[in-house]
C-alpha cells in the first residue's frame, strides 16, 4: 500500500516536467501565437490570442497560467475543429485503446506458444525457425509490414478491408501490424526465461507428482516465466503507442495517432498539446497498473 502511494507521488513531478518542457518549447521556439494560429490568421486574431494567453505578462506568470489551464484540461481552441481541444482528443481515445489492446492480446497469443515451443525444442530446426522469425519480426518497420499485409490480404486476396474502423475484420491487420514487434520481443524473452525455468527443481517435483510434460510446462513453468513478460510489456507500452500512431496513419484508423499527425501538419497546436498530455497520462497509467499487477502475480515481492 505504501508502495502504491509512493509510486503515485512519483507521477506528479513527471507530469510537471512534461508540462514544463512543452511550455518552454512552445515559448522558446518562437511566438506561440504564430505557431498556434494558421498561417493566414488576421492581426485581430493574433491580438486576441495573445491576450487570452496572457503573453503580456512575465514568463513565470505565463507558466502558472499555462499550468492551471492544463490542470483544468483547457488546452485552448482548435482552429481546425473550432472547439476545445481536449474533447476532440478524448473522442479519439477509444479507437487507439482498442487497437492497443488488440495488439497486446495478439502478441501474447502468438508469443506464448512460440516462445515455449522454441525453448522446449531448443537447438532444433523448430527453434531455429522461431528464433529467426522473431528477429525478423523485430527488424521489420511496422508501417512497411502494414503496407505489405494490406497488399496481400486486401489488394490481392481481397479478404480483409483496406482501411478505417468498423467491424472486427477491420481490426485484424492494424492489430497485427502494431503487435508484431512486441510479439517478436516477447517470444525471445519467453524463450530465454523458459530455458531458465525448465531446469528448476520445482519442475522435477511437478513431474514426480505424475503431471504430464505439457501440464508441467504450462502450469508450473509458464507461470514463472510470465513475470518478466509483464515488465517487458510495461516497458514497451510507450514504444507500442508510438507504433500504433504510425499504424493508424497506414490504415486510416481514426485514433489519436491520425489526429496528432494531421494536427502537426495543420499546426493545430492546441490539439497537439492535448494529445501529448493524454498519451503521457495513458502511458504512465499503464505502467502504474503493470507495476501493481506484477506485485499481485509474484508473491515473493508482496511484502518487500
Amino acid at each position, binding site marked *: 500500500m505504501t508502495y502504491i502511494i509512493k509510486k503515485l507521488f512519483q507521477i506528479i513531478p513527471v507530469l510537471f516536467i512534461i508540462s514544463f518542457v512543452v511550455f518552454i518549447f512552445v515559448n522558446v521556439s518562437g511566438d506561440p501565437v504564430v505557431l498556434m494560429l494558421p498561417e493566414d490568421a488576421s492581426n485581430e486574431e493574433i491580438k486576441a490570442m495573445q491576450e487570452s494567453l496572457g503573453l503580456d505578462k512575465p514568463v513565470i506568470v505565463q507558466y502558472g497560467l499555462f499550468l492551471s489551464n492544463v490542470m483544468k484540461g483547457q488546452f485552448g481552441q482548435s482552429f481546425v475543429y473550432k472547439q476545445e481541444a481536449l474533447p476532440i482528443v478524448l473522442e479519439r481515445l477509444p479507437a487507439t485503446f482498442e487497437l492497443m489492446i488488440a495488439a497486446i492480446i495478439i502478441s501474447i497469443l502468438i508469443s506464448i506458444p512460440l516462445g515455449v515451443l522454441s525453448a522446449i525444442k531448443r537447438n532444433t530446426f523448430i527453434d531455429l525457425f522461431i528464433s529467426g522469425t522473431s528477429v525478423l519480426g523485430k527488424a521489420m518497420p511496422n508501417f512497411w509490414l502494414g503496407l505489405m499485409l494490406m497488399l496481400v490480404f486486401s489488394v490481392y486476396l481481397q479478404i480483409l478491408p483496406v482501411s478505417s474502423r468498423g467491424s472486427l475484420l477491420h481490426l485484424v491487420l492494424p492489430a497485427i501490424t502494431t503487435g508484431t514487434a512486441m510479439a517478436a520481443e516477447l517470444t525471445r524473452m519467453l524463450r530465454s526465461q523458459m530455458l531458465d525455468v525448465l531446469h528448476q*527443481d*520445482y519442475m522435477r*517435483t511437478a513431474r514426480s507428482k*505424475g*503431471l504430464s510434460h505439457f501440464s508441467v510446462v504450462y502450469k*508450473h513453468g509458464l507461470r*514463472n516465466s510470465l513475470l518478466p513478460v509483464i515488465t517487458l510489456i510495461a516497458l514497451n507500452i510507450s514504444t507500442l503507442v508510438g507504433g500504433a500512431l504510425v499504424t493508424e496513419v497506414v490504415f486510416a484508423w481514426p485514433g489519436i495517432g491520425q489526429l496528432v499527425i494531421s494536427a502537426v501538419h495543420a499546426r493545430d497546436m492546441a490539439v497537439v498539446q492535448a494529445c501529448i498530455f493524454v498519451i503521457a497520462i495513458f502511458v504512465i497509467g499503464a505502467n502504474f497498473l503493470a507495476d501493481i499487477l506484477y506485485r499481485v502475480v*509474484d*508473491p515473493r515481492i508482496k511484502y518487500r
Partner: protein
Amino acid sequence: MKESEVLLEVKNLKTHFNTINGVVPSVEDVSFYINKGEKVAIVGESGSGKSVTSLSIMRLLSETGKIIDGSIHFCGRNLIELSEKDMRKIRGNEIAMVFQEPLSSLNPVMTVGKQIMESILLHQKTRKQNAKQQVIDLLNKVGIPRPEKVFSSYPHLLSGGMRQRVMIAMALSCQPKLIIADEPTTALDVTIQAQILSILKELSEQEEVAILLITHDLGVVAEVADRVIVMYAGQVVEQAEIFSIFDYPKHPYTKALLNSTPKLDFSQTELLSIEGTVPSPMEIPTGCRFYDRCDFSSEICKQSPELKEITDGHQVRCWLVEEAIDNRI
C-alpha cells in the same frame, strides 16, 4: 530374511548419460529390492550413482540420461517397459518423491496448498472441497501448526523445516506404497534434521509406506533404515541389515565410511577421513573401483570382484572378504 512381499525389485540397472565429453556410465549393474513397508537406505558419496538410481526408478532422468539395461519391477510391473502415460499414474500416486532442497523444489508462485492438492486432484476422483480438507489433514499430520494458514501461504514464507514437512505431506498425499527421499535433510539445520527424520519414520510406519532413503550420512541411516545398501562409483559394494552394517561391516569402503562418521558413544579413538575422491565415471579403474583408495588392496583387486552373499542377506563386493571366507573353509 523376513518372509515378506517384495515391493520393488531393481535388477542389473544400468544408466548412462550422454554428454559432450562422451558417455558417462553413472550406474553399472545395480540390483536390490525393497519389501512392503520396509525402510531401505542407499548410502554413498556424491558421484556414487545413488541419486541417478532413484531418478531411474521414477524415470525422471534429464534428457541426456538413459536406462541402458536391467529391469525395475514394482508390484509385479516392469517400470522400464511402461508407457509414459502409465508411468505418470505411478508417479506421485504409488511412488512419491521428497527432494533435497525444499525451497527450490517448491514452485515459488503457487501456494503450498495448491501444490499438494494438485497431486490429489490428479490421481483421485475427489471434489476440490474434499481435497482441500485432505491437504489440511496432511499438513496436520506432518506437524505443521495452523495448517489452514499454511495452506494459502507461498513457500518462501515458510522455514526450511516447514517446507520439508510440506514436501513430505505432498509425498504422502495419495497414500503411495513407496516414498523415495533423496537427501531429505541435507539442506536443513541439524536440530531440524532429527525432527524431519522422525516424522518420516513415524508416518511411514503408521501408513505402511516403504521408504527408499538416499543419503551420504550414516547418522541419518541409523535413525531410519532397516536395511542399508552401500554404493560406490555406480556399483553396490555392500548390502545388509542395519545392524550387520554397523557392527560387522565387511567392505573396506563401508568401514572407512563408518570411521568417518562420529559416534555418540565415543567408541572411536579418532575420526578418519577417506583419502582421495570417488573416481569420475569417465575414468573408472578396470578392477575393483575402490582400488586406488583402499588400504588393503592387493594384486587380485585389479580384477573386478563380484557381489557375493557371505551370510544370510549380507552381500559384499570385495576380493578380500571372499578370500577370508575361502580361507575359513
